[in-house]
């Protein structure tokens, strides 16, 4: 709770510090705000373009910017299990429930996250996979555990192996000292839903500007038709599928009739 309060306070202070006194401003644009999943979908790549607009007071910092792009997908609920050996068999013994972690999480930057700011600042601004808040429910308590928590590590490891969590320190390219481009890679198994993109601008280890945008991933065409039918007209969809199975079975026996 205390951490949350601190974060809120920081956000308020930051907002108050903004306005006319702020030296840098971020302007960002996504190549598309809608990714369509069709039958030949095998993943996609989005491009985010951004520019740093600086006034006179920031002149000395130009060209020394660190940019962190955090992309978060729709939330889900996940249990992480740990197997232990019981009577010679490996059995799920201990579990942790993760409360609403993002189904997709990408942290893209133009230099290694640890090199951007001091560790306690990275923690405060939630920069990097290590510092992303992944609350767990243990019994009736909901709390954030340390980055070294074995269940948290295992969760991030599993999501990384699926290609859904990633931290890339070379995915943001500075085109000019104030113009940058970020490549957002979406794997084939990416969940559909609303995605948030947050861009943070650091200069000399301090957060100087942030901006957000969003995109959505939806099914289109035949995929959309099938998914919609299965969701909205479940019984009719089931009956139609069963009828299709019977049709196939009948066709098989007619075409290949041997007796």
């Amino acid at each position, binding site marked *: 709770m205390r951490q949350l309060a601190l974060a809120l306070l920081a956000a308020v202070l930051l907002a108050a510090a903004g306005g006319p006194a702020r030296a840098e401003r971020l302007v960002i644009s996504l190549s598309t705000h809608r990714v369509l999943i069709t*039958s030949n979908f095998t993943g996609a790549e989005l491009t985010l373009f951004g520019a740093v607009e600086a006034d006179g007071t920031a002149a000395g910092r130009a060209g020394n910017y660190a940019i962190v792009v955090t992309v978060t997908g729709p939330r889900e609920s996940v*249990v992480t299990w740990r197997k232990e050996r019981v009577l010679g068999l490996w059995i*799920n013994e201990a579990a942790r429930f993760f409360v609403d972690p993002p189904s997709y999480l990408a942290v893209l930057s133009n230099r290694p996250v640890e090199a951007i700011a001091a560790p306690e600042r990275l923690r405060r601004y939630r920069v990097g996979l290590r510092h992303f808040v992944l609350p767990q429910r243990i019994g009736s308590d909901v709390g954030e555990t340390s980055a070294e928590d074995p269940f948290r590590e295992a969760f991030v490891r599993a*999501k990384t192996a699926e290609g859904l969590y990633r931290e890339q320190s070379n995915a943001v390219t500075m085109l000019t000292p104030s113009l940058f481009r970020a490549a957002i890679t979406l794997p*084939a198994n990416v969940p559909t839903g609303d995605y948030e993109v947050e861009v943070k601008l650091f200069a000399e280890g301090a957060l100087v500007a942030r901006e957000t945008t969003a995109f959505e991933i939806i099914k289109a065409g035949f995929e959309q038709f099938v998914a919609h039918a299965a969701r909205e007209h479940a019984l009719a969809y089931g009956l139609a599928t*069963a009828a299709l199975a019977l049709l196939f079975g*009948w066709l098989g026996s007619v075409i290949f009739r041997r007796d």
Partner: protein
Amino acid sequence: MLIYLPIADLPVNVFLILGMGVAVGFLSGMFGIGGGFLLTPLLIFLGISPAVAVATVSTHIAASSLSGVFSYWRRRALDLALAAMLLAGGLIGTGGGVWLISVLRAAGQLDLAISLSYVTLLGIIGVLMIAESARAIFRTRRGGRETLRRPGSHAWFHGLPLKLRFKQSRIYVSVIPVWAIGTFVGFLGAVMGVGGGFLLVPALIYLMRVPTSVVIGTAMLVTLVTMAAATVLHAATNRSVDVVLALMLMLGGVIGAQFGAQAGQRIRSEQLRMLLGLIVLMVGLRFALGLVVTPEDPYSIQPIEGSP
């Protein structure tokens, strides 16, 4: 060529799925089984979630068993009364199995239960089939006549009430053991995601002494009805039937089953049973390995169903 599956939410190689359909269809045509116990683990291995794999395989089995039912029906080699009685028990068993799945999933022990039931059942049935067919092969080698054991011996369940005469099967038994077999097969079918033909066929032959000629057709009819019902139930409650995946599996399965049936006619029946026994035992051993061998990563993640 990759195609995106709208319900499983991932792309798969069309030729790989078609090939799997042909291969499993070949075996099911050869041995007269549904092949669910092979197909469900294969799909899960490809990365398809167990819920979608189990539901979609039931659609595939419904299609492949209908082909069989037609040809046995034309030869009048199925017992409608026996099938109806088995189904009466089967529906209760399926309901119980679906309930047990939800309980085990909440406790995180569904994988364990599925693995243990595969190991136990496939192990026992595989060993029994191999032993029985080895004896049969040994007997024919020595030149002895293969005697069909149909003695009038009475097992304990012949004393039970509610006796019914099943004309086609030429048996006169109480319906209680029939219901029990149906319930047991329906229950395990729901838990393991299989049609249960490989359980039903030996149970009818060795326990109920139903003539082999009637058994396969009757088992296929039971499988057809339960799997068609399972397709509708899975679609209506879990929304987990992937029609695109089912279509590819059925297409491959129908083709494979024809070649399998032709190949099966060229092999002696006891050798066929030996071969099936070996396949069943191997799948069982594969599951046993997964339970005993130290996992590379003791941690695993599992999304909670119904989350947004």
